[in-house]
């Protein structure tokens, strides 16, 4: 027969969305924060980002081609995002070889050892970051001074680091306030910190874009930030001299980056809105517990990785509301 017809089961039409389009939307959402970090940390920020991206994409390609012997899937954009997010989670003055090791841990251990995109349990970029934080604690916590700052130093502590150190030394919050960034600086991101985490404003812009383009839903970010706010607020109300006010906690450290970009990773977060709220609250509570009582000034990376491990359990327990009620 010359004119064979295609026969396949329904549906015969498909929405125009693809994995690639979703990934590129995430990348677009990351751009404002990246631009801001170049403004604050100079071309070094771009250097770190480029190395992380090239290393992540490169490792994925090589590993898939020569070790896993499958067709490389680097064009889906997910390795690019892993690289970008890894860069966002490290200081802008990190030596190149440490970045490359981080990318190897992120893509190799975090992603490909589980089978690649879609099958990894933990957020790959965070696996890379935590690997580096434990292996190179000094380099990973020496943050460059923002260019607008009038401080005459090479490295600066993060606002959370300053707070932790002060409180550990027994200083009350009111005494520390003078050393900490102002509210405006916190909001626009004129402070020390990891490359992409400093500007709450830019990250929120990116988050709104992702919400609008239906890449993420509100559940996870709201649950993470909301629970952090409530927990920090409760302690602050009890003793404002020992505990910092809740808004400070939301605008510092990796709170925004974590809540908007890291915790919302589709692969490693729960499938239902209800599940995402449980997951998000878990992240918020663990983060605040580490910040308030732990040895590290910041703990959102650990919190997200811990809750990533609970995701399969949440998916198995929290089911969408079925049409037609219980049976």
């Amino acid at each position, binding site marked *: 027969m010359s004119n064979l*017809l295609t*026969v396949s089961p329904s549906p*015969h039409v*498909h929405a125009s969305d693809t994995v690639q389009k*979703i990934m590129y939307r995430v990348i677009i959402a990351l751009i404002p924060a990246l631009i801001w970090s170049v403004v604050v940390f100079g071309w070094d920020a771009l250097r770190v980002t480029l190395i992380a991206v090239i290393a992540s994409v490169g490792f994925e390609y090589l590993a898939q081609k020569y070790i896993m012997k499958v067709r490389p899937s680097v064009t889906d954009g997910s390795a690019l995002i892993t690289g970008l997010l890894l860069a966002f989670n490290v200081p802008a003055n990190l030596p190149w070889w440490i970045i490359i090791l981080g990318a190897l841990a992120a893509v190799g251990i975090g992603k490909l050892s589980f089978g*690649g995109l879609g099958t990894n349990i933990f957020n790959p970029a965070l696996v890379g970051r935590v690997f580096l934080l434990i292996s190179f604690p000094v380099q990973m916590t020496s943050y460059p001074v923002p260019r607008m700052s009038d401080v005459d130093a090479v490295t600066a502590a993060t606002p959370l680091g300053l707070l932790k150190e002060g409180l550990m030394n027994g200083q009350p919050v009111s005494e520390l306030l003078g050393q900490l960034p102002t509210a405006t600086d916190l909001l626009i991101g004129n402070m020390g910190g990891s490359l992409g985490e400093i500007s709450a404003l830019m990250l929120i812009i990116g988050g709104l874009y992702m919400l609008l383009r239906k890449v993420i839903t509100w559940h996870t970010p709201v649950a993470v930030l909301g629970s952090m706010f409530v927990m920090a607020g409760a302690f602050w109300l009890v003793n404002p001299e020992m505990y910092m006010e809740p808004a400070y906690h939301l605008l510092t450290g990796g709170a925004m980056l974590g809540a908007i970009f890291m915790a919302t990773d*589709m692969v490693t*977060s729960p499938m239902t809105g209800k599940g995402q709220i449980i997951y998000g609250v878990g992240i918020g509570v663990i983060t605040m517990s580490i910040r308030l009582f732990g040895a590290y000034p910041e703990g959102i990376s650990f919190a997200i990785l811990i809750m990533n491990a609970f995701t399969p359990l949440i998916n198995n327990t929290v089911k*969408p509301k079925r*049409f037609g009620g219980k049976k």
Partner: protein
Amino acid sequence: MLKTFKKGGIHPPENKLSAGNPIQEMELPKVVYIPVSQHIGAPSTPLVKKGDKVKAGQLISKSSGFVSANIHSSVSGTVAKVDTIPDSFGYPKQGIVINVEGDEWEETIDRSPDLVRECSLTGPEIVQKIQDAGIVGMGGATFPTHVKLVPPRGMKAEMLLINGSECEPYLTSDHRLMLEKTEEVLVGTTLLMRAMGVEKALIGIENNKPDAISLMKEKARGYKGIEVVPLKGKYPQGGEKQLINAATGREVPSGALPISVGCVVSNVGSAFAVYEAVQKNKPLFERVVTVTGKSLEKPCNLKARIGTQVAELVAFAGGLPEDTGKVISGGPMMGKAVASLEVPVTKGTSGVLIMPEKEAGRGEHLVCIRCSRCVSVCPMGLEPYLLMTLAEKKIFDRLETERVMDCIECGSCSYTCPSNRPLLDYIRFGKANVGAIIRARKN
């Protein structure tokens, strides 16, 4: 705020290319191919043999049980053979082939176009006429209508719902019927109400058909108990359970029939067929078919005799376009791709959709990235990604507890998946297996 069903749903491009084209009478074919099974249930039993002379409207194949339907000749002529004819997938199925000679109808049929509103028949008499006329659900499900009208013991119908949502993209046959046969559809609705013994009927129409909504609303004023409910456009609003949920807010329990919440759903096309059967004595032997497609020269709505080959409808609409890759019987979401154009129009053929080559295939599918879109669009509140994995791994007991049998096969999951995964294909496989297990358990 317009009503719609609560859970899930998608908005595929509507592409209602033929919405503005009035229903045209299709010229008579030379030969018709009438399958003896055009409905859900037992195939009917042929009453004619080769060489018999038949008239349009004559019973040629008799219902063989309660869940079955009569089949009537759609033309006048001579039976050429009673043999196997290929169905839409190319499988041989029993059918009756008739050579057309003239256009002689049964004398009892009223061929005048005048509207007949009055009816003195009782409910059971109307049900009998509907059964005799071989009317089935004309939205595509083809469930014999008379079966629905008689509630199972202990259940009582409260209201009738008429599905005028036509949520499938491209299809416009119900839309045109509501515009051109408004009163007939309303009389049909009244007859169905009387057959069921209910005082209330809701006609759900999506807001992408404002002309149909206003016209039906205006004319419905003259009919007692009929209310037109405009609905917010969303697929799959035409699904029985979704329509009930949208129009009344009720939820049909899992595994139960609409009657369990006091509703019976019928379709605009069926209501029109009921009008013709009861008021005009005309059995179901022709229907309106939307013939459409982006490359088709003249997308149209054709009134065609049952048994007319799809090829003739396509020829009438300007011929098969050069770039044709797929021909679908029905709409793009739930229709069936046919293997050839040499298949007949049946009672359930709501449309013929010609898809160009570039839209005919499926893209390559990738891994699941757990974006959870399938979960959020599922109108039944299921987890398609999980059902697919369970079906793939043949874990049928878990599939059953995850309520795979609730799936209405609307295809919203496969439509929306950014990884292009064949979710519904696997879910169907799972349903078939779980269904067999459940049946075996009952026996």
